[in-house]
């Protein structure tokens, strides 16, 4: 029915089956939209956040999807700046994923703030010392860059390419893509870093406070490294999942292995840096703030196991797997390792956001717990459903994996 819209040579399922796949996600989207409406109409009392737990599921989600979305900038950087041509096979998909991650994060951020209509104040009265200012500026600029990178993929679609002047614009945009890739890399460095800095500068919370290297706390650099490591893993993982779901070979196996290798080495560097940082933090930074580091892990929910899980099981283990050529050669291990790497980064963002706020600071404080309300969860699922829907539609009508056509011939 919609064959004239599908790029020639791509095999896609029938329209009714495609709609059947979209239906549950659309339902989830509708539920999420209702929850978001409630938050706008009634206020943030619809959430389970409170004066102590000022950040909740949403901020955690923002940090995680932005870390995973780093695949877009890193793939673009490797392809357009370092000229790793083999990544042409995944760059479109990476750009779409990046766009979805960032737009989803900004969307949920707009629900999360109490006065979204005042968001422009940050631009007008910026406090240049705040990490959140850096994040706001960079996210906005980078979303624009991602939209510019997404546009050519859309303009090349089968129907839109008949609009000749837009196709010419696409052609010219593609020629200058290296500039956008470089700008995207610059912006990504700063906002990934600033998201880490967000917690690193909080001297009120010895659990998240880190000593500064130059003008930024160490988490600034750790977040850049971990996002750069997780990004390629996430591109690898999604490519594999899409390939399994659509039952198609989308890229040559070497491309996935290359992504895994890049991810692995970066993760290894990250785990090393994280180890050093943790030692400095536990042995020097925290005692200086009058805090015994053992106390961070003294509460039942968050024992030292969480540090071990984050750094070793979800850090060192996938890093070693991904740098080993023999492990990479086995697709199962490759995919498992990249999934572990993504989970590791997600856990790191969880610890920074949730554990920081759960731990008491004042002597008469208690350890607090928090579980999100259904509205928060539904808004979270809204972003997930939005991502799945837009990605599915993009996958059906756009060429996300240029090698797919060739590989389909076998």
């Amino acid at each position, binding site marked *: 029915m919609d064959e004239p819209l599908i790029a020639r040579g791509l095999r896609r399922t029938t329209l009714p089956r495609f709609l059947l796949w979209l239906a549950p996600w659309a339902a989830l989207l509708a539920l999420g939209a209702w929850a978001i409406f409630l938050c706008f109409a009634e*206020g*943030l*009392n619809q959430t389970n*956040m*409170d*004066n*102590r*737990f*000022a*950040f909740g599921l949403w901020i955690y989600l923002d940090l995680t999807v932005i870390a995973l979305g780093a695949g877009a900038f890193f793939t673009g950087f490797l392809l357009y700046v370092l000229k790793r041509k083999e990544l042409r096979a995944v760059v479109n998909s990476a750009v779409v994923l990046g766009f979805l991650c960032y737009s989803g994060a900004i969307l949920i951020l707009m629900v*999360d*703030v*109490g*006065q979204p209509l*005042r*968001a422009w*104040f*940050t631009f*007008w*009265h*910026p*406090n240049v*010392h*705040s*990490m*959140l*200012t850096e994040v*706001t500026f960079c996210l906005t600029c980078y979303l624009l860059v991602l939209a510019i990178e997404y546009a050519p993929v859309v303009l090349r679609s089968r129907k839109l390419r008949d609009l000749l002047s837009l196709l010419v614009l696409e052609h010219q945009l593609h020629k200058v893509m290296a500039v956008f890739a470089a700008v995207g890399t610059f912006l990504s460095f700063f906002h990934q870093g600033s998201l880490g800095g*967000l917690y690193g*500068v*909080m*001297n*009120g*919370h*010895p*659990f998240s406070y880190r000593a500064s290297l130059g003008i930024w706390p160490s988490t600034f650099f750790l977040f850049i490294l971990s996002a750069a490591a997780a990004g390629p893993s996430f591109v690898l993982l999604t490519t594999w999942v899409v390939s399994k779901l659509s039952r198609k070979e989308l890229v040559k196996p070497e491309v996935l292995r290359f992504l895994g290798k890049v991810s692995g080495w970066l993760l290894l560097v990250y785990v090393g840096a994280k180890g050093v940082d943790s030692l400095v933090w536990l042995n020097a930074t925290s005692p*200086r*703030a*009058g*805090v*015994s580091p*053992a*106390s*961070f892990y*003294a509460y039942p929910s968050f024992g030292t196991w969480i540090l071990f899980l984050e750094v070793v099981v979800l850090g060192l283990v996938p890093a070693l797997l991904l740098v080993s050529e023999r492990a990479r050669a086995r697709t199962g291990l490759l995919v498992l390792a990249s999934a572990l790497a993504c989970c590791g980064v997600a856990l790191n963002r969880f610890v920074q956001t949730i554990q*920081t*706020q759960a*731990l*008491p*600071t*004042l*002597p*008469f*404080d208690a350890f607090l717990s928090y579980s999100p309300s259904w509205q928060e969860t539904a808004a979270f699922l809204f972003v997930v459903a939005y991502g799945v829907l837009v990605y599915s539609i993009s996958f059906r009508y756009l060429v996300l994996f240029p090698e797919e056509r060739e590989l389909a011939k076998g």
Partner: protein
Amino acid sequence: MEPTANPRERRHRYGMVIDLDRCTGCGACTVACSVENNVPPPPERSTERTGVVWIRVSEAQDPRPAGARSVFVPVPCQQCDDPPCEKVCPQRAVELDPKTGIVAQVAVRCLGCRYCMAACPYHARSFNWFRPEWPDGTAALLNPDVSVRQRGTVEKCSFCAGRLQAAKAKAAAAGSREIDPADYVPACVEACPSRAIVFGDLEDPSSEVARLARESESFRLLPALGTRPKVLYRSVEPWVRASLSQPEVSRG
């Protein structure tokens, strides 16, 4: 970087010393504060963690195994000289006035991102989770000197900035540049039945608050964090001083 103050204008550092030995935990300070500053009454659905409160009275237990004693601790904004909230606010909705030392929350500029709340170790800030409402005609009793805040913004103790403005206006009308200290007393100080709170200019060595602040019985909350609060506490009880000036996490 900071606007240069007029040299003829004297700089102040307003602060308070709260005598924990006198505090009975009656909560009069919280009530007086809410009335003075148009703090909305908590709606039915709110909890103690989602209401708006500018000065919270907590109870601290004697941590020693044998200790069955406890102490009440009123916690307003600690008015830090190096406020963690000020440097994290993305749009300068938190301002440290160099002329008074007061950390102000500019409600009309607040985005409601709550980063300041996450950054404040004293949990002295409240978010308007609900739309502020004054039921049954109580809106007529609002203080005209203090603006009400919107849903979705953060607020906190301002050391009764409305009263400082009124004192300044009175001084200006009398042709004076300096206010009479007796004209500027925050509502909580005034309301405390046991006179536990002493307020004044810490910069003025002759003031009572400066004298008390220098005494060895006075201490700050979480001094090791480097926030340098201008709200101090005092107690003759060593266990109170020892346990309150250490962070909870140090004891694990």
